[in-house]
């Protein structure tokens, strides 16, 4: 009997939660969109400043992104999709660690080590593609685990260690590849590693017919990435493991009090983040989007760092990462289509930079949008006086902060 009464009261509360959850999700999406629009506008202004005559045309090129020259074997759209897949993974890597309160700035290093793993298993051992993917994930996981261990047991800041590990990974991988220490992987005449698809066809990620529509580098990688994003979403939101990780991220002391092993959570979170970044590298190199150039020793793989942008724009939501990665890939490809006589392709990077910069204000936008929505629905707000009793306080806090 008591069961029926609780069920009765549960029904309206359920609808409340769904409604408020929906409003907050909508606000998040809206605030991200506001960031994107302002970022694009700033990009347009920059285009005007550089070359006013061609600004409109250039701006359209960026907006169209992968849909430029759609007839030429859909080259651009292929590139956009192929590059989005690894970007989703590094975005997920950053977003996942962030849920445990860790800032995984080391996705680039985990990505590099993952690339080495994937290439070694493909070019030297000629393993099937899924084994190569697992190898890449394992390598990335190991590389992520080290900062995790240092953080858990010695409280060494993971930002510092993972930045250092980025460069160790990059130079280490470059040396190993260039000198063919692990086996023949480097084609010195082309300054790049061998092409996976021609050296070991079985190690390339299958196209499943996608190459009939798009170029060869468009494989099922994008689907793998989307599936992994969904799995991550489920882990974070639906499982006890996700509950523990988030508890650690929000309040380490309370997590410990509740008997959660916070050291284990930190390490596992970094291991998974590393594996995700490693998987990203596998999706890139095993799809043949490009080959590794071990002579390029000045920059860490951009996909690793762009993962931070992807995660920030997605407010660390795994599903959001899919869309933000596609958007960033879209704008980047658009930038590369710009007529180089007038503009540099790096304009796209500026636009992305502005968008990410604005994401720091995303909370502000979210609040403003929230206020607008609230004013519109004040008639709903008097459901329970207790709600309002506390809200004045939070408003007061916000105002106080404004004062300071």
């Amino acid at each position, binding site marked *: 009997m008591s069961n029926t009464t*609780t*069920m009765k*009261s*549960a029904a309206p*509360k*359920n609808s*409340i*939660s769904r409604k*408020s*959850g929906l409003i907050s999700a909508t606000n998040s999406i809206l605030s991200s969109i506001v960031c994107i629009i302002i970022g694009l506008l700033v990009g347009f202004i920059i285009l005007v400043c550089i070359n006013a005559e061609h600004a409109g045309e250039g701006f359209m090129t960026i907006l169209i992104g992968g849909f430029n020259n759609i007839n030429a074997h859909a080259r651009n759209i292929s590139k956009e999709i192929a590059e989005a897949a690894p970007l989703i993974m590094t975005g997920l890597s950053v977003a996942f660690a962030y849920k445990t309160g860790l800032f995984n700035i080391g996705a680039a290093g985990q990505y590099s080590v993952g690339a080495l793993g994937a290439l070694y298993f493909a070019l030297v051992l000629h393993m099937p593609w899924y084994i190569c993917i697992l190898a890449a994930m394992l390598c990335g996981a190991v590389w992520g685990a080290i900062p995790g261990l240092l953080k858990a047991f010695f409280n060494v800041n993971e930002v510092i260690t993972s930045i250092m590990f980025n460069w160790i990974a990059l130079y280490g991988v470059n040396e190993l590849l260039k000198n063919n220490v692990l086996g023949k992987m480097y084609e010195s005449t082309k300054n790049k590693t061998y092409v996976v698809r021609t050296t070991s066809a079985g190690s390339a990620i299958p196209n499943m017919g996608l190459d009939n529509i798009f170029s060869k580098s468009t494989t099922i990688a994008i689907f793998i990435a989307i599936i992994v994003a969904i799995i991550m979403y489920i882990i974070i939101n*639906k*499982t*006890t*493991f996700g*509950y523990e990780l*988030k*508890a650690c991220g*929000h*309040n380490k*002391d*309370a*997590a*410990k*009090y*509740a*008997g*959660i*092993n916070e050291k284990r959570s930190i390490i596992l979170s970094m291991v998974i983040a590393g594996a995700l970044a490693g998987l990203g590298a596998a999706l890139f190199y095993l799809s043949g989007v490009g080959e590794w150039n071990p002579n390029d020793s000045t920059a860490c793989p951009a996909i690793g760092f762009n993962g931070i942008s992807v995660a920030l724009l997605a407010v660390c939501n795994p599903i959001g990462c899919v869309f933000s990665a596609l958007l960033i890939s879209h704008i980047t490809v658009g930038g590369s289509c710009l007529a180089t006589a007038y503009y540099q392709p790096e304009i796209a990077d500026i636009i992305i930079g502005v968008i990410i910069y604005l994401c720091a204000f995303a909370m502000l936008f979210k609040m403003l949008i929230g206020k607008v929505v609230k004013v519109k629905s*004040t008639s709903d*707000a*008097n*459901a*329970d*006086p*207790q*709600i*309002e*009793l*506390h*809200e*004045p*306080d*939070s408003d*007061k806090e916000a*105002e*106080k902060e404004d*004062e300071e």
Partner: protein
Amino acid sequence: MNNEYIIEMLNITKEFPGIRANDNVTLQLKKGEIHALLGENGAGKSTLMSILFGLYQPTSGIIKKNGVEVKINNPNDANALNIGMVHQHFKLVECFTVLENIILGVEPTAAGPFLSTKDARAKVMDLSQKYGLSVNPDALISDITVGMQQRTEILKMLYRDNDILIFDEPTAVLTPQEIEELMKIMKNLAKEGKSILFITHKLNEIMEVSDRCTILRKGKYMGTVDIANTNKEELSRLMVGRDVKFEVDKDEAKPKESVLKIKNMTVPSKVHKNNAVKNVSFNVRAGEIVCIAGIDGNGQTEFVHALTGLEKMSEGHIEFKGVDISHSSIRERSKSGMSHIPEDRHKHGLVLDYTLEQNMVLQRYWEPQFQKAGFIKNGAVRDYALKLIDQYDVRSGQGPVTTVRSMSGGNQQKAIIAREIDKDPDLLVAVQPTRGLDVGAIEYIHKQLVAQRDKGKAVLLVSLELEEVMNVSDRILVMYEGELVGQLDPKQITVQELGLYMAGAKRDEVPAEV
């Protein structure tokens, strides 16, 4: 005639969408008096003070200073009218010294941008002598006690020549000794002509220092009374709207077998080289409330942490229900039937950014009842949270999906108590369970503790409040500098005597077995 009042808030009404936080409230502060503002959590005290401090504009009503109507649009206006406020949570820069914090915002300069603290230092030292607020101006805020931090806040107001001082629940964070000191300081300030508004829900303090008291209940003005002509019972009736019992109703304890046996526990300190807990041995039996009394910082925190597994002990044994749990993990101890209401509800007790329902299962989310193959059963969690909310009357804006951060302190504490008691523990460790709560909530929590005892459970209460120690416990153990210095019977001892034990002036041998 008008000038009798330094500040008048007349017929103030403040409406928020859907609620009237203040409904026709009048507050008149005389020059040189200590005026208490009394009300339960959520009665509208903070809103009223925010209006006076310029954070909100009243929907209707006027504010007068010295009989002249004034507009206070922001805190700067309030400052210009010499209104200062000590917030409940101090607004100090941790890595600055006391002096630097005091001058922050009104930094005295010499020759352009260069800071000149000489005069400021002299003024601060003068003030601290005049009002008996001794502080070390060069100590870092992070190094000094909460009491000292509060003095810094008071000096901040005095340095700005404020003469209307608002104290927002100033005693919530203080030890009994510090409270006594603060009361003296407040009386001194009033004697020197400062007018004080004292927001609190502790009746004893009002009776001790205030001249008059204005009472709010659910936003409504209940009246202003002269403290000389009233008593605690009348005040609490005005505040809560019903009679509140200060004495805890309970029968004689019927203790049974020992549930918890602690032998020679020693816990190293994190702050200094000495041991925080030294060779402590005692038992707790089923069906009794044992209280560890003592002044804050005498090893109680470390003791509880070692008992619940948050910290490691260097020596000793803990036996719980006949099993040695000295080296068990926090989870194992919790599983075996130990519940812990932590001292710091924000640090340990709650994940503030989780919803109420997520916090309700913080200790049990892994039980088969709430998860299957690692997936959380949302329906079961929701039903369980609704049950606890209903049973323990936890109030919040959106029920189980309220973010706990937005809830009032009293309801946050109720949520923890609901969670810990509903685990049906054999031993309930409650550390300062009523800290910062109003009388209604305190009465409720005390009832719950006694109910646990009467169900035959063991309760270990750690408290700094003498009244709580005397009223609730069946047996008192006094902890002084990490040692047990006395085992006392609350029915046979006076508060004064207990104070002597707590201050280390008196001690006996404490038998390990009861």
